[in-house]
């Protein structure tokens, strides 16, 4: 497993991709979930009782930063199918939108634009924020293990 990770991330390009995904996803999710504010001052804030939500965001960002570059590696270097890529993208997107649609600007925009359907969607994504993020993490974890497995097989075949 470690060898597979070394194989992918020994290439600087994938290391940069991974770092970019982690940082950008973490910042965006922390802003959307109101852990970080940019106005009127840049300030971070971890209210009591929201620590688990914060931990899930960090885990989600880290897993996305691990799995997505590995799948890009599979597609671009090994010319493999794009099928497994969808798992990593799905996990990242679902996990991201879970907390975004609360009482913040995204939820407000969704409700203002889509009316009662938007309100129902927002309520669902807010009520089940933690379970949805856990499912997204589970999807990314499964994708990670299947990617590692297929990389091992494909690398042996290609080498």
């Amino acid at each position: 497993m470690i060898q597979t990770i070394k194989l992918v991330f020994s290439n600087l390009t994938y290391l940069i991709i991974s770092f970019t995904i982690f940082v950008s996803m973490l910042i965006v999710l922390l802003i959307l979930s109101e852990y970080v504010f940019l106005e009127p001052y840049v300030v971070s804030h971890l209210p009591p009782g929201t620590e688990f939500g914060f931990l899930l965001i960090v885990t989600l960002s880290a897993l996305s930063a691990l799995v997505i570059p590995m799948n890009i590696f599979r597609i671009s270097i090994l010319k493999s199918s794009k099928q497994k890529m969808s798992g990593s993208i799905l996990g990242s997107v679902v996990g991201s939108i879970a907390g975004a649609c609360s009482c913040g600007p995204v939820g407000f925009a969704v409700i203002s634009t889509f009316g009662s359907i938007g309100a129902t969607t927002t309520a669902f994504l807010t009520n089940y924020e933690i379970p949805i993020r856990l499912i997204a993490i589970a999807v990314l974890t499964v994708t990670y293990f299947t990617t590692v497995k297929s990389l091992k097989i494909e690398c042996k075949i290609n080498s």
Partner: protein
Amino acid sequence: MNKKFLILGTIVIIIAVAIFASSSTPETVNLDITRTHGTISTSMGSPILGNPSAPITIVEFGDYQCHQCYNWYHNTKPSITREYIDTGKVNLVFVDLAFLGNDSPKAAQASYCAEDQGLYWDYHDLLYNSQEPEIDGGWANSERLKAFAFSLGLDMNLFNSCLDSEKYSKRVQYNIQQAHEHGVKGTPGFFIVSSDEQQQIRGAQPFTVFKQILDPMI
């Protein structure tokens, strides 16, 4: 002579107690239909919490079902109350932006039904202390809103008829309209208003941010 002093002293004490009792109650019923704070019409908002003649007003746009409003209420508001509202430097007005679910407007209307009986802020506090994680999960439905009123000892005939008749539906809608007009795109949203300045704060920001804005304005 002594009897005269005794009577005079008793009258002075009664007057002093009456003045203290009236000044220590932060709640004032909102009867001013022309009330504005900066560019915001707060005439349909909550009664003023704190000193009505304080030089600075915090206008909070909020929803009773909003989790971030709950966070702000429990984590930031106590410090603001202690350092600025209780000391008479700042007062606060709550204006509804009830958009999150079907129970949000109803909860906002219920708060004004409680205001009819002089207990707006008690009811407001009770709602934020009773908030449950699930939006429209039933914690703020009509039955529960009536139960909250009962627990505060409100006249239930008055409260029920007020809530069931949707007496304050238009009032809540007016407040939501104020939020739209001032570009509030989420809750909680704040405006810090002084005589010559108006600054917006978006989200459940920590006390340090409010302090950095309030201190130079005082």
